[in-house]
C-alpha cells in the first residue's frame, strides 16, 4: 500500500473508525515510512491537544430564556387555536391571570414547571415502545423541578408569589422533607394570613403523612390568627387526628381566645373524642 492510500486512512485510524486489518496495515506502514509516521504524529498531537479544551456550562439565564421563549410560542399557538375555535369565550390567559405571579422571576419558574408538566403529560398520553425509561427519568425530573419551583416561590417577598409556591407544592405527590419544612414555615411564620391559610390547604393534601399530621397538631398551639386557627381545627377534625385533642383543650382553656374560635375548638373536640 502506498503513502497516499495510507494517508487517506489516517483520520479513520485516529478516530478508531477502521477495522483491525486496516489498523495493522497502517501500523506496519508507518513503522517503515518516516514521512507517514511524522504525519500521523502531527495529527495525533492535534487530536490529543484538542482534548485540553474544557467543556463549559452556560449561565442559568440560557435555560430561563429558552423556557420563556417556548412558553411564549406555545401561548401564541394556544391563542391562535382559541381564536378560531372558541371565539367569544373567556381566554385561558385571563383565567390564569388571577393566580399567575406578577413578577418575572417567579413567572419564569412557574413557566418551567408548567412546561415540564406539559412535556410529561404529552409523553404519558402517548406511550410508545422503548420510552418507559425516558418516562421514568422525566417523571423524576418533573417531580424534582416542581419541588424546586415551589421552594423558590415560597422564599419570595411577594405574598402572591408565595401563594403560587403553595399552589405548586400542592401538585407534588411525594413531598421531600425540604418542601414539607417550607410548607410548615409558611403555616407558622408567614406574615400574610392568606398565605398561612393556603398552607393549611396544601398540607391537607399530604394528610396521610405521619410527619404532616404531627406538624399540624403542633402548629395549632402556635397560631394566633383566628382564621388560621379555625382552618386548622376544621382540618384536624376532618382527618380525625385524635392527638389534636390536647391542643384543643389548651386552646379552650385560653381566656383570651376569641369566642368564635372557642366555639369551633369545642366542636372539634367533640368530633375527636
Amino acid at each position, binding site marked *: 500500500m502506498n503513502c497516499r492510500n495510507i494517508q487517506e486512512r489516517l483520520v479513520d485510524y485516529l478516530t478508531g473508525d477502521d477495522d483491525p486489518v486496516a489498523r495493522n496495515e497502517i501500523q506496519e506502514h508507518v513503522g517503515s515510512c518516516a514521512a507517514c509516521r511524522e504525519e500521523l504524529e*502531527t495529527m495525533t*498531537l*492535534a487530536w490529543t491537544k484538542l482534548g485540553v479544551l474544557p467543556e*463549559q456550562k452556560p*449561565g442559568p439565564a440560557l435555560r430561563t430564556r429558552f423556557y420563556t421563549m*417556548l412558553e411564549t410560542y*406555545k401561548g401564541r*399557538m394556544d391563542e391562535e387555536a382559541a381564536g378560531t375555535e372558541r371565539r367569544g369565550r373567556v381566554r385561558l390567559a385571563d383565567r390564569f391571570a388571577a393566580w399567575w405571579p406578577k413578577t418575572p422571576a417567579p413567572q419564569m419558574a412557574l413557566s418551567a414547571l408548567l*412546561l415540564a408538566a406539559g*412535556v410529561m403529560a404529552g409523553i404519558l398520553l402517548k406511550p410508545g415502545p422503548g420510552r418507559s425509561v425516558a418516562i421514568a427519568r422525566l417523571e423524576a425530573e418533573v417531580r424534582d423541578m416542581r419541588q424546586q419551583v415551589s421552594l423558590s416561590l415560597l422564599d419570595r417577598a411577594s405574598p402572591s408569589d408565595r401563594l403560587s409556591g403553595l399552589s405548586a407544592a400542592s401538585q407534588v405527590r411525594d413531598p421531600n422533607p425540604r418542601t414539607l419544612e417550607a410548607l410548615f414555615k409558611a403555616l407558622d411564620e408567614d406574615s400574610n394570613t392568606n398565605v398561612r391559610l393556603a398552607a393549611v390547604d396544601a398540607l391537607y393534601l399530604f394528610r396521610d403523612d405521619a410527619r404532616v399530621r404531627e406538624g399540624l397538631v403542633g402548629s395549632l398551639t402556635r397560631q394566633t390568627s383566628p382564621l388560621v386557627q379555625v382552618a386548622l381545627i376544621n382540618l384536624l377534625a376532618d382527618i380525625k387526628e385524635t392527638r389534636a385533642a390536647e391542643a384543643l383543650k389548651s386552646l379552650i382553656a385560653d381566656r383570651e381566645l376569641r369566642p368564635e374560635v372557642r366555639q369551633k375548638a369545642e366542636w372539634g373536640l367533640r368530633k375527636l373524642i
Partner: protein
Amino acid sequence: MAPHDDSLIMTDVREGEVEKLAILFERHHLPLYNFFLRLTGNGAASEDLVQDVFVRILKYRSTYQAQSPFAVWMYQIARNAHIDFLRKRRDKDTVPLDDQWAEAAGHEPQPGEALETQRDRALIRKALDSLPENKREILFLSRFQNLKYRDIAKLQGCSEGAVKTIVHRALKDLGRAYAALQEGVTS
C-alpha cells in the same frame, strides 16, 4: 440517548407538541453551547447562538424530516446561525479568535490547575485561530459533537471523502501550528 428517540420527539414537535422541544433542549444545549464556545470563544455570544438555534428549530419545525437524524438537522441550523453571526460580526469590528478567548468570561485558569495545562490550552486556542472557519467547524463536529463523517457530509452538503480530507488537513495544520507555537514558547 438514541438518535431515533430524538427524531420521534422532533416529529411530535413538528406536529404541534412544541412543549416537547424542552426535552431536546435539555439533551443538546450543553454540547451545542460548547460547539459555539469553541468556535467563537465568547460565552455570551454562544448563549445567544444556542437560543437562536432553538428559535429557528421552532420556526422551521415543519421542514423537519423524520428520516434525518435530529442532531444532523440541528447542527445544520447551528451552522447557519453561526454564519449569520459571523456576517454580523464582520459588519462590526473584527476580533481575532485568541483575543476573544482572552476576553471571554469563564476561561480564567481554574484554581489548582497545572500551569502546563493552562499553557497547553492557550497554545491550542491560538493554533486553532490559524485554521480557516470551515476547517475548524468540521474538526469540532468530528472531535466533540460525536457526529459521523457521513452525518457531517450531509450537513455540509459534500461527500464523506471530502469531510475526511478536510479533517485530515485540519489536524495536520493544527498539529504543525501547535508545534511551532510550542517551540516558540520553549526556545
